[in-house]
């Protein structure tokens, strides 16, 4: 399973790195507010409780530590 995951991720990395360039004037869809690649600000508290109630955290572009999270 781990090997498959690694192969998949490496394939994705190589694929992303070989993409063609999109011109600025062609980015009207990419610049749509719903297309933002970070979590929305309104997701902040959902991410917090998920960090508290689940063993996993991180890799979402957000906070990576600090605070107890023990209640």
């Amino acid at each position, binding site marked *: 399973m781990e090997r498959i995951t690694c192969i998949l991720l490496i394939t994705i990395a190589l694929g992303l790195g070989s993409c063609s360039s999109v011109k600025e004037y062609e980015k009207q869809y990419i610049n749509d507010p719903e297309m933002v690649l970070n979590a929305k600000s309104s997701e902040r508290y959902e991410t917090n409780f998920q960090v508290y109630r689940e063993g996993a955290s991180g890799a979402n572009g957000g906070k990576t*530590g600090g605070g107890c999270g023990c209640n």
Partner: protein
Amino acid sequence: MGKHLLLFALLFTITAFAQGTDTIPATDSTEVVFKKRVLETTEVDILSSYYKQQGIHSAVGGGTGTEELTDATADIIIAIPLNDDNVLTVDAGFSAYTSASSGNINPFFGGNTGASRRYGNFRDDDDDDDDDDDDYGTPYGSPWVASTGASQKDVLTSISGTFSHSSDDRNIVWTANASGSIEYDYHSVGFGAGLAKLFNNKNTEVSVKANAYLDKWKPIYPTELHEYGLYGSDFLTNGYFNGVPVLDQYGEGSSSYLPTAFRPFTNSNRNSYSLSFGFSQVLTQKLQASIFLDVLLQEGLLSTPYQRVYFADRANYYIGKPQYIPVYTSAENKGVYKLADDVERLPGNRFKVPIGLRLNYYANDLHVVRTYYRYYTDDWGLRSHTASVELPVKLGQRFTVYPMYRFYTQKASDHFAPHDKHYSFEKYYTSDHDLSSFDSHQYGGGFSYTDIFQSFRILYFGLKSADIRFSHYERSDSLSSNIITIALKFVQ
């Protein structure tokens, strides 16, 4: 796996650089170059949420008991343009919670060390029957009833600041940040720095960020262990336990309870260090993706000092009403609390590696598809997969509705066992079900309003966007919760 992920991080960084940097024509020193401000005006975000949860596996109760919790939060985030290139962002907020579980650090109604409303001085008995369950000559408690102890509620206050500087060509962004938070038994100080570089006509972005959090506990222990730590082997005749009957499994009085495994923690620091890599790529005019890889190391006191553990190879002892001993692990138990053998003991360090992928697709002028996947692994043996999808549907130029679904599955930590299933010879143990094996499903949605003209104004600020979202969360071990969040963005 860790080596593979590090190789992956290097690989995607190299492939990004391989696309080459934009060639910036040399300019004459007298030439005037137009430079757009990074942030035109001050922006203010106001966020608030209300969270409510219930469950049956209280970690404070050693894996059994109510997990009722409510949490109300509010934050204000102010982004201030200092000049064309620099932005200062300040984020301040609080989180006020009430928790039945942490209230049971001292679960007993009565005694010298905790809530003393009932024991000895609560003898209403005015024959209106309002005290029938309370008129009992000894202290008692239950993992299924919230104590009114001081630890039942607390407020987390936090503040952070981030300074960012963008290069003249806007292809390099430096950031530096500092943060602090405080609650009754815990405080945290953090700082960090980051660098993001854009390539390929801003179609590619590579970022790296480092953070350190230096946290400190003020350890609070369950009452029975606190007393044992204070008075040693004589604790049954001193302090809280002086004159309090302790019961064995059969409800008979006993003086044999001795939690010899317990010793107070000598290190109350918890430090976290993280290195985060990010890579994002515009793939087509309607498709873009990003990958996040974090490498996190935690060290110090990673156990929560007030989470009880019960050993299967040790006899059980109780305080309270003996008739409830046979139904101890069910909500029928309204009057007896089992005395802990120890608090949870976890290793002094933890190495975590999460890797996440986002993929967003602009299907058409009405629909956008937002997806996310994460794989997580750590050296406590915990593995997890997370997948989520959000489907924004545009209702005209100003309104959007978005249903969402998130699936999460987790394999338990090596150190987890349920209530009363650990053994005293183990080195590490916890009955915190947040580290158990489970699946979870989260359903929800939201409604957002965007007005680029900011026609609704308050003082000097116009409302640019408003977002309200709700979600319901269900875990396969019976924990469930609901959360509602409101986010408002104002611009000057």
